[in-house]
């Protein structure tokens, strides 16, 4: 069970998403006809990284067999908070960034605590907290706006004139958060919980800690995306539709990236490419001159297609009892 073939099978989802993205990007560049310009790359990168961060965030609870429907609203809430805090002298801004990230951690911790200690179903708990987060965001910023120190927008430029800074941020997240997490005991625990909770418990894995960590990291990553959004738009906006869209898209990105919604298999890398695929849809619509109103339709369709593809095995299952819910 080793060697390149095993690697291919295990990462087939991520590879599929990667190939799909490259194909879409090439079509986009060719059809656009202006060549590989910096501005073009920047735009694609910035939009993609935003969703990619939220998708990585979503990946963690999904790996444990859960789901976070509040990830979009955490993103919106931290965006609104950042729009209120990120101005003044540099130390104030630094403090503001820390405060925003801390808020993300708290949001995740609330979700995690409700699910782990309150033993609520992840969907309902996070649906409810998403309403609360939205309420808070609306309280902070009833109308879009905010004065933000332009210094923050350094995140949206490019490093050494060629590499989009946002991509560097994404890479840093992968290297500093995802890779160590995946290798850690807790991260392995998340995979174990997702594939079989009872087996994980029998193996002596600290299930509670793994779950809690997954939701907390999810909140933290969503707040990073919130910060990045603030840097791009230089304003805060408590928008229902943006929160909802990001939640939906993050699930779609996770699924396209090959992470099973049942938990236990997949990873953040696939989700990143899944996010880029989704973000590229609107660009493709643009170059093919299709009404942008179609976008939610297409995104929903992609989500449905992605989850349906993963479910074809159900129709061929040799045992008809196999996929029925056991008494919960």
């Amino acid at each position, binding site marked *: 069970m080793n060697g390149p073939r095993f690697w291919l099978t295990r990462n087939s989802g991520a590879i599929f998403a990667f190939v799909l993205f490259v194909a879409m990007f090439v079509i986009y560049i060719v059809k656009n006809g202006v060549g590989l310009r910096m501005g073009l790359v920047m735009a694609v990168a910035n939009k993609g990284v935003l969703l990619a961060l939220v998708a990585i965030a979503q990946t963690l609870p999904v790996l444990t067999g859960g789901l976070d429907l509040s990830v979009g609203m955490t993103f919106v809430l931290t965006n609104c908070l950042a729009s209120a805090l990120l101005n003044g002298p540099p130390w104030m801004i630094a403090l503001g960034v820390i405060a925003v990230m801390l808020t993300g951690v708290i949001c995740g911790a609330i979700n995690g605590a409700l699910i782990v200690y309150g033993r609520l179903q992840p969907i309902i708990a996070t649906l409810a907290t998403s309403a*609360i987060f939205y309420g808070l965001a609306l309280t902070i910023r009833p109308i879009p706006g905010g004065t933000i120190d332009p210094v923050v927008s350094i995140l949206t430029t490019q490093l050494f004139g060629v590499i989009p800074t946002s991509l560097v941020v994404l890479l840093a997240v992968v290297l500093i958060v995802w890779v160590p997490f995946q290798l850690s005991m807790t991260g392995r625990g998340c995979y174990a919980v997702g594939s079989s909770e009872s087996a994980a418990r029998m193996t002596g894995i600290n299930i509670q800690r793994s779950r809690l960590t997954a939701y907390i990291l999810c909140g933290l990553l969503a707040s990073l995306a919130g910060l990045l959004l603030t840097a791009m738009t230089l304003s805060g906006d408590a928008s229902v539709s943006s929160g909802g869209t990001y939640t939906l898209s993050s699930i779609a990105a996770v699924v396209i990236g090959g992470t099973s*919604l049942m938990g236990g298999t997949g990873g953040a890398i696939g989700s990143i490419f899944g996010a880029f695929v989704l973000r590229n849809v609107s660009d493709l619509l643009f170059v093919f001159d299709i009404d942008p109103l179609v976008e939610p339709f297409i995104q929903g369709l992609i989500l449905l297609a992605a*989850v349906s593809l993963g479910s074809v095995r159900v129709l061929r299952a040799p045992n008809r009892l196999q996929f029925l819910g056991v008494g919960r």
Partner: protein
Amino acid sequence: MTPVLRAADRPVLIAFGFVVLLIILGGLYNPQFLSAFYLLQQLQVASFLGIIASGLMVVILLGHIDLSIPWVVTIGGMTATAATGWWGEPFAWLGPLVAIASGSVIRLANGLGVALLRIPSMVFTLGMNAVVQGIVVMYTGANAPVDRATPILKWLAVHETFHVPHAAIVWAIFGLLVVLMLGRTPFGRYVCAIGNSERVTYPSGVNTRSILIAAFIASGACSAFSGAVLAGYAGKAYQAMGDPYLLPAIAAVVLRGTSILGESGSYPGTIAGVILITVLDSILSVAQIPEAAPQIIYGAIIIGMMLVYGRARRTEG
């Protein structure tokens, strides 16, 4: 009566108790709260939510959820008014039927995805919501369909018989149907059994797939019809008209303790939940609390009630 039954009824009593308490509190704040006019008006406003919750309750009893409520409600309202534009004034009465049909078709898709492909219902319905949104937005953008409420929709929503708003009567009819279906038919038995364990129900020789699909269709019909009535009440159908109803509907069903895990449930509790939410909403708006507050309160209510009644049973290996 057995202790079990009493335990199940307690949330209902608590919810109704809260309704009374809220109305009395509101009465202290403003005596108009206690007038028959106000109470009937509340019943009318509650009925939209009530009709949606009737259908959602069946789905939740099955152990599933439907997050496509917002746009199914919207498409119900849109098609109910647009029917006039398609076939002309004489066929306006078809509007509510078209609404029911459109809602049923969408939820049929949900049911197929959940029952045949075994995709988690929340994910599939979430995706479906986006697809329906896309369809409605595209169609409206290109065709500008008639969105003015037709007389029959107004008759359904705001006309009164013996001072009782028709919307409340419609709700009562839907409620009666749901109660009959759950309590007196094999379908209802199967719904409760599947909600507790499809693993047992299927080998008992029950076609659990068709039960799941039928439940989704029924709930779609409820949501879309509610959209039609809502369009009659508001005077027109508009985009995103269903957006405010998702959370309250779930909260109302969950409130009574129809646990999201799909255990046994009773309809009176859902009624109590719907009225409680509506009265709460109305008091909040009268007290001029900003828009953000209801969101936080719904969220807190759902979490609070779930912590008390709906604890997920630990899945011991």
